[in-house]
């Protein structure tokens, strides 16, 4: 069996990554906002789906 390679470097922050990739501070803020919106939307949908599934389960019980 193969042994995985251990990654032991500290996790870079989004700002460190942006600097390395040459993305401006302004654009980084925009990207953070877009990704956070995507995340919030998906979380909301996940919660709604879970609630719906619960209701369905209760109805069939």
């Amino acid at each position, binding site marked *: 069996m*193969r042994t*995985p*390679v*251990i*990654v*032991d*470097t*500290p*996790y*870079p*922050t*989004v700002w460190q*990554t*942006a600097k*390395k*990739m*040459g*993305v401006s501070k302004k*654009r*980084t803020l925009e*990207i*953070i906002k*877009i*990704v*956070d919106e*995507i*995340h919030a939307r*998906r979380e909301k949908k996940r919660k709604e789906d879970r609630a719906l599934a619960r209701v369905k389960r209760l109805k069939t019980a």
Partner: protein
Amino acid sequence: MAGAQRDSAFLNIPYDPSYEEHFLAYIAGVAAFGLDPRATLELTGGERRLDRIFKLIADCRYSFHDLSLVELDRSSPATPRFNMPFELGLVVGWQTASPSIHDWFVFESSRHRLQKSLSDLNGTDPFIYGPSADGILREIRNALARHDVQPTATQMRSIFEEVQEYASSLIREEKGAPSLFEARPFAELVVAARRSAEVWVPGLLRP
């Protein structure tokens, strides 16, 4: 190389529209482990391309080489894609010269194909991911590990989905240049993946 960035991983993958989903899976998977993906897409400037590729490789602590599309391309004249095996060769030479500072991983979609396409690598076990992008996430999880916090399959899948959604918004925004295989979209995807990973794997954040 003393200046190798220990949190960077070189992605040696095909830049092909049919490969877009896999491309995003590599970005998301590598970012989930706290590594910044790098690729030759970033290379601009006047210096000889080969020198810049080598510099980029030497700057990275890890590299992922996907040889699944080493085949004849569709556009005329039909030619095999030599770039990926060539860059893998550069890495193998580099790693042999300085063994402790670089780890490389070969990824393939089908079993036994590598033995035929690149028999010089016999004895090297490629990571076989099958047809789907999920397979790439799984095999990155097989290749890498962290002692502090190990990203879970669900976390990696969620980061991947968010990066996919970000890529769609990027394509909508950039009506004139809808390819993700360019310097700016790539840089932004890497930043988006890092942000998503920060949210999904909070245990890996710096104190």
